[in-house]
């Protein structure tokens, strides 16, 4: 008997360590439950939110017996937990004695404290742009230049620091997205309403995301199901007969699992030929784009996981107005082009944060993408099917304290290309690319005025060889509200010469690859070093909040897959760089808050982009040396029910641009040496009626500037001078649009 008691007494201390849970319910004075009320143990970050029944369940804390319960608009309560079940009643806050000080959040933030030169565009900024997909989201941002690549496909091309998009690493939530086969049109396959924010980083990106980034990185975040609203609808129509529809359906299954179904459809049914050159100004076509994402979050245990399933089908038809695909395809009756794309994607991101060590975590990203494009441009045919698999395993932790953080990991890439071109020659360029790599990145922050990120990675690629990629970013705050950033890094990439230069197919140019001993279409890998310096100063001028940003970046190519359209207007030559190729860019930006709610953004950019071509060292064609940008944004005070007016106006001036050499053409097909300077203006007015509903109208290219002679030899597109790729400005004139946004919160 005594032995039994002794045994029980031995077990006594172990009982006190068992986990007990507190279950409770949070309601208001009418016993209505709160969904999403915060319930936290006092003085800790351990807590949860209430479900649709106002219920919660929380493991007891060893540190305190007090719970803090809060919900916006209601008085926060601190209650002592004395049993395992509790009911908390929150009272509405009626007499706000404090003076409310609000600072309208900026739509684009330039951080003073991040190490990399990154600017974040929030949803507010994204809503200002005319439309509709990612390629059109940058018109109000001075750091990204947007232009049309050709007069046929209506595709917008973006440039950063003077270099075109293949040199920018584009990632979706840090998984490489627009690359390889999707390089040309990839941005137009991401609807703008799906995007939560965009981070634009100048200078070589982080080693964690890969070795390909040369001039910078654009990362976009997609809306997260756990914090999304139940329903969103957006409808859009424009005077050039383009219509779009977006619908989001969000479902929260539990406090841990939620999902959002994104559906997008767009179409252009009317044929426009405003400049009467016989060619459609923008392609007709349609797109259906569906994404379903699931999010699982268990904050207590430290798990977060996202699963994305995506399907997209896009059809575009451009070319002559009287072109009928069924009758005229592959004939010389009429010139036309069709680009049909189908994309499938399955991706997963899972992260685990050690519960008692919030600075230590694991991340595992996996993505499978299939991108299939079948297209023809007159008699030129181009088909590419890329299946790619990306996997990244990361581990984050600290060295002695959180001032010294590091991330390390492994990366695996596998790309299967099924590529056929039928131009002036027919060839199959199908191949498999794969690489394995390991990376290490160290971050130091002295929590005061200095931090640095130093990273390196080593990769083994079957075509690029084994190589090391170093990247360094420094940040220093010399005095209050000022920051100096410096960066340096190397990038290496495989140029997909056909996928990245598709606009050249819409011409009669003959293609040739001059080298044959390299592993990439006969060419060598592209290698470049990028260095940059940036200075930001925030200050008050005449009492107004002002921000001055100065940027200088230089990219030097050790090797480049040179695309030569100057050697002859009837040819396109691809060859390895033999000499210098560089891009120098300088940007000065001044942002001023002129008055409460009235903001002015101005910028001046200078570019010096030169390459050694066969015919000599030349400035890159179709690149303006000087650009001026101005944006003025005004919004009224938000009234009680959410009513607001927003006005936005953008002015872009481009200096003269060197045109590709057409001096050997017949006089009537010569373009001259320089394109004239010109300006483009966009404006948008939004009227918000409540937090549920808003309408907007706007205009693009209000000044109706059109490039004369956008298509050379448009009267005989099968002649030897035909070329629709020498585009320096807008091809269609002014365009007006209207839309509405409706949501249920």
């Amino acid at each position, binding site marked *: 008997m005594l032995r039994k008691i002794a045994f029980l007494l031995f077990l006594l*201390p172990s009982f006190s360590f068992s986990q007990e849970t507190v279950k409770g319910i949070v309601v208001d004075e009418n016993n209505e439950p709160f969904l999403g009320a915060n319930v936290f143990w006092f003085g800790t970050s351990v807590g949860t939110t209430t479900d649709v029944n106002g219920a919660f369940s929380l493991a007891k804390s060893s540190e305190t017996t007090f719970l803090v319960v809060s919900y916006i608009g209601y008085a926060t309560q601190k209650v002592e937990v004395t049993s395992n079940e509790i009911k908390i009643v929150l009272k509405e806050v009626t007499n706000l004695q404090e003076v409310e000080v609000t600072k309208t959040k900026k739509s684009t933030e330039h951080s003073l404290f991040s190490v990399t030169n990154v600017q974040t565009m929030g949803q507010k900024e994204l809503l200002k742009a005319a439309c509709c997909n990612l390629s059109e989201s940058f018109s109000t941002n001075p750091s990204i230049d947007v232009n049309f690549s050709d007069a046929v496909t209506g595709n917008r091309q973006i440039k950063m620091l003077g270099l075109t998009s293949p040199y920018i690493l584009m990632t979706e939530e840090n998984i490489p997205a627009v690359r390889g086969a999707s390089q040309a049109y990839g941005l137009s396959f991401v609807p703008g309403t799906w995007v939560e924010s965009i981070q634009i980083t100048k200078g070589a990106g982080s080693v964690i995301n890969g070795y390909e980034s040369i001039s910078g990185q654009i990362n976009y975040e997609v809306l997260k199901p756990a914090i999304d609203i139940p329903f969103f609808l957006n409808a859009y129509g424009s005077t050039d007969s383009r219509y779009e529809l977006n619908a989001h359906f969000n479902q929260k299954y539990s406090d841990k699992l939620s999902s959002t179904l994104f559906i997008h459809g767009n179409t252009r049914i009317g044929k426009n030929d405003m400049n009467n050159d016989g060619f459609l100004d923008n392609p007709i076509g349609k797109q259906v784009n569906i994404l379903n994402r699931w999010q699982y979050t268990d904050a207590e245990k430290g798990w977060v996981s996202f699963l994305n399933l995506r399907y997209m089908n896009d059809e575009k038809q451009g070319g002559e107005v009287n072109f009928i695909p069924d009758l005229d395809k592959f004939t010389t009756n009429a010139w036309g082009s069709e680009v049909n794309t189908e994309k499938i994607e399955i991706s997963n991101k899972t992260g685990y944060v050690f519960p008692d060590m919030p600075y230590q975590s694991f991340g595992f990203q996996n993505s499978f993408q299939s991108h299939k494009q079948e297209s023809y441009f007159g008699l030129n045919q181009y088909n590419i099917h890329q299946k790619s698999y990306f996997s990244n395993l990361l581990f984050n932790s*600290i060295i002695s*304290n*959180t001032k010294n953080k590091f991330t390390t990991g492994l990366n695996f890439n596998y790309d299967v290309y099924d590529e056929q071109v039928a131009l002036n020659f027919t060839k199959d360029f199908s191949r498999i690319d794969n690489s394995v790599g390991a990376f290490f990145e160290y971050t130091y922050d002295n929590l005061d005025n200095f931090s640095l990120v130093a990273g390196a990675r080593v990769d083994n690629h079957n075509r690029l060889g084994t190589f090391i990629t170093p990247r360094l970013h420094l940040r220093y705050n010399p005095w209050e509200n000022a920051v100096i950033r410096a960066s340096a890094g190397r990038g290496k990439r495989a140029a997909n010469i056909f996928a990245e230069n598709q606009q050249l197919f819409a011409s009669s140019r003959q293609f040739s690859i001059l080298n044959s001993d390299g592993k990439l279409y006969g060419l060598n890998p592209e290698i470049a070093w990028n260095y940059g310096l940036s200075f930001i100063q925030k200050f008050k001028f005449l009492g107004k909040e002002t921000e001055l940003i100065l940027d200088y970046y230089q990219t030097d190519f050790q090797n480049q897959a040179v695309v030569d359209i100057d050697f002859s207007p009837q040819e396109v030559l691809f060859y390895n760089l033999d000499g210098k190729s560089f891009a120098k860019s300088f940007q000065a930006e001044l942002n001023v808050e002129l008055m409460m709610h009235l903001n002015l953004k101005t910028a001046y950019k200078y570019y010096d982009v030169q390459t050694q071509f066969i015919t000599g060292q030349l400035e890159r064609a179709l690149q303006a040396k000087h650009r001026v940008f101005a944006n003025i944004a005004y919004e009224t005070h938000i009234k009680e029910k959410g009513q607001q007016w927003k006005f936005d106006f953008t002015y872009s001036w481009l200096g003269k641009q060197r045109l590709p050499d057409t001096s050997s053409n017949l006089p009537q097909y010569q373009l001259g040496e320089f394109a004239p300077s010109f300006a483009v203006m966009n404006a948008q007015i939004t009227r918000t009626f409540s937090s549920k509903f808003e309408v907007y109208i706007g205009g693009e290219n209000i000044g109706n500037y059109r490039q004369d002679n956008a298509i050379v030899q448009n009267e005989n597109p099968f002649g030897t001078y035909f070329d629709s790729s020498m585009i320096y400005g807008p091809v269609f004139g002014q365009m007006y649009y209207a839309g509405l946004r409706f949501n249920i919160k």
Partner: protein
Amino acid sequence: MKKIMVLVLVSLFSLTAMAQEKKSKNKKVEFNVAGNCDMCKKRIEKAAYAVKGVKSAIWHIDHTDIHLIIDETKCSKEDVAKAIAAAGHDTALVKAEDVVYKKLHDCCFYERLE
């Protein structure tokens, strides 16, 4: 009989005593630290990080408390409080000396604790 009882009681105490004293390498600690502004935040956190064994130190201005993760085998929360007080900030455990407090920047003159 008596011997068995004594044995049981002693074992019981030592078991519980040992269980309570096991040192954690990632112990979460919070205590009040007085301060007014961003400069105070930097000073407080800098002082905390200077103590070997402090893995993470975040000071919150709204609750005027510091959230620490410390390696108990290397330091104790009293060590960290002493370091913060030496930098000029009153803590719930150790107060700053008047001399050091007076040397702080104007904006940092927080209300002294007690």
